[in-house]
C-alpha cells in the first residue's frame, strides 16, 4: 500500500481573536490507500481543522500536506478547487446536497463538473445509488429523503468521481442509530469493494468501532494512532 495523504509537521493558528488559538500543533500523519481511518478526540481538539487542511479547504500556518505526492499546502485557491474536484470526495455533517437537484442529479453533479459524458455519468450514478440501496429514490429531491438517505446520497456523490480518498466530517452526527448503522455498513462495503480510502472525524463510538485505524487528537497534537 502507498501513502495517499502525508501531513508533515502541520501547524494551524487562528488569529482572528485577540488570543491566537493553536488548532494544530505539529501533526504528522500518513494515510495509506484503502484505509478506513477515524480521527477522534474531544471538541476543539483540531479534528475538523485537520480534515479541512488535508482536504485542501484551508491552508496550514506551517507544514506540508502531500496528497498523491503533490504538496497542496501551497496551492492557490483556484488550483485547490480543481485538485479537490479530481482527488477528494467530501461528506459533511450537515446534509450537503444541492436542494434543487434530484438524488440522481446530485450524484451526477461532480462528474458533470469533471466533464464526463452523460451516459457514463448516469450509469455510474445509478450503480452507486443501487449500492447505497436508494435507487428507487433517484428522482426525489433531498427534502423528500430522510437524513440517513441524504447522507447515503452524499457518500454516493463523494464516490462518484472515484476520488483518491473521502473525507467525512462527523457524517453520523445528525443520524439515528439505525441510519448510522446503515451508513457505516455502506461505507465499509465501499471501502472493501472499491478500495476507497475513508478518513472520518467523529465522536461517535459506533464509527470508532467500525474504523480500522483510530487517530486520537488532543490540543492539536496526535496522542495515539492505533491500527486494528
Amino acid at each position, binding site marked *: 500500500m502507498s501513502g495517499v495523504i502525508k501531513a508533515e509537521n502541520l501547524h494551524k493558528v487562528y488569529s482572528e481573536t485577540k488570543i491566537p488559538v493553536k488548532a494544530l500543533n505539529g501533526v504528522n500523519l500518513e494515510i495509506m490507500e484503502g484505509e478506513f481511518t477515524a480521527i477522534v478526540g474531544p471538541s476543539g481538539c483540531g479534528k475538523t481543522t485537520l480534515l*479541512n487542511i488535508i*482536504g485542501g*479547504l*484551508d491552508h496550514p500556518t506551517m507544514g506540508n500536506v502531500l496528497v498523491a505526492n503533490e504538496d497542496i499546502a501551497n496551492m492557490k485557491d*483556484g488550483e485547490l*478547487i*480543481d485538485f*479537490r*474536484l*479530481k482527488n477528494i*470526495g*467530501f461528506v*459533511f455533517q*450537515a446534509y*450537503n446536497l*444541492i*436542494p*434543487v*437537484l434530484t438524488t440522481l*442529479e446530485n450524484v451526477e*453533479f*461532480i462528474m*458533470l*463538473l*469533471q466533464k464526463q459524458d452523460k451516459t457514463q455519468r448516469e450509469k455510474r450514478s445509478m450503480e452507486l445509488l443501487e449500492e447505497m440501496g436508494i435507487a428507487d429514490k433517484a428522482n426525489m429531491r433531498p427534502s423528500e429523503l430522510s437524513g440517513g438517505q441524504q447522507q447515503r446520497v452524499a457518500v454516493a*456523490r463523494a464516490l462518484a468521481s472515484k476520488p483518491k480518498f473521502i473525507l467525512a466530517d462527523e457524517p453520523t452526527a445528525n443520524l439515528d442509530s439505525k441510519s448510522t448503522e446503515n451508513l457505516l455498513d455502506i461505507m465499509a462495503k465501499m471501502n472493501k469493494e472499491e478500495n476507497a480510502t475513508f478518513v472520518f472525524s467523529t465522536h461517535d463510538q459506533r464509527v470508532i468501532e467500525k474504523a480500522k485505524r483510530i487517530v486520537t487528537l488532543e490540543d492539536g497534537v496526535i496522542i495515539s494512532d492505533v491500527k486494528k
Partner: protein
Amino acid sequence: MYIKIAWRNIWRNKRRSLITIGSITFAVLLACIMRSMQLGSYDRMIENAARFYTGYIQIHKAGYWDEKIIDNSFSWDQELLAKVENTEGVNSAVPRVESFALASFENKTKGGMVLGISPEREHELTRIKDKMVEGEYLQDNDEGAVVSEGLAKYLKIGVGDTLVLIGQGYHGANAAGLFFVKGIAKFPVPEQNNQTIFISLKKAQWFYAMPDLITSMSLVVDKAKNVDRILADLNGKLDMNYLEIMGWKDLMPDLLQGIEIDNISGRIMLWILYAVIGFGMFGTFMMMTAERMYEFGVMMSIGMKRVKMQFSVFLEMLMMSSIGVIAGISISLPILVYYFYNPVFMTGEKAEAIEQFGVEAAYFFSLQPSLFYNQAWAIFFMAWILGFYPLYVIQRLKPVEAMREA
C-alpha cells in the same frame, strides 16, 4: 445543468420570486404605459403642428423666418416645383400665402390668420377636408373662404354669410375683400381653431396684391425620419442665396424644447420607479445570496469553480428579470395596441382647461419598438449592476468560513 439549477433555484422560494418578478412586471408595465402616453402625445403634437402649421420641411425666401412679413415672399414656378417634387422622399409641395387680416362680420371683429392655399395639395398635407364640419371645401381659384369653427362662433358667422377681411398687402398695399363663407372646419388645436381663415391661393395673391408669389412652401414627405436627408438633398439643389429651407425642428423650436423638458421629467419619474424596483431586486438578490452561503461553501468544497457558480447565480437573476420583462411587455402590449387605435379623449371642464394651453385634450399612445426594448434594457442593466453583489460575494467566498458562518 446550470440552466436547470438556476431555473429551479428561482422557484425555491416561490413567494419571494413571484413578488420580485411581479414588481419587475409592474415596473415594466407602468413604464411602458407612461412612456407610450408621453411619446404618443409628443408624436401627436409634432404631427398636429407639422401637419397643420408647417409641414415637416418648409421653403421660404431667405430671411422670412426671422422677419415673417408678406414682403419676404418668393416666386413660385413649375421649375422650382419640379426640383422640389423630384427629390427622393418628397411626395408633394404645398404652396401657401400666410398673413394676417382683421376678420369682421356684422358688429364683430377679430384678428385672424389668413392662409392662401392650393386646396388639393393642402388636403394632402393637412387632411383639411376631413375637418370640414359644415358647408363645402375650397376648389382651385375659389372665391369663397373656409373659416375655422372657433372663429366662426366668435363672429357668429355661418355658411353663406359674407366675411370682410382687411389687412396690409405686398409692399404696403391695402388689402380688403369680401369672401362668402363656403364652409366651416374644426381643428383639434384651439390656437388654430380660433383664428384661421382659408382662401384659395389665387384669391390670396389677389387679396394681398402679390401675383405669383408665395410666403412658404411646405413639403409632404414619405417618412418623418427622412427629413434630415431631404434637407441635405434640397440644400444642394436650390439657390440658397435666395431661399431658405428648414426642418420641423427649426420651425418649431418652442415645441421641441417643451417636449424635451417634459421628456426629461418623464425620464426622472422612470428613474425613480426603477430605483424603487431596483432596491426590491437588490433585497431579493441579497437574501438569495445570504441564505445560500452554506450551499455555496459546499459546492466550492466539492470542486465547483467560482466562475461556474457565478454564472449559475447570474443566470438566475437574468431569468428572473427576463420573466418580469416578458410578462410586463406581454401585458402592456395589448393595452397599448388598443389605446393606440382608440385614443382617450377627455371631455368637459378638464378638456377645456387643457385646450386653453393649446393642446389637444386627449391621451395618445405610441407603439414605438424602442418603448419596449428600452424598458427591457433598463431592467437588464439594473440586474447586471445589482448582480455584482452576489458575484462579488462568491468571488470572496472561502468554503470553510462560508459553511461555518452559515
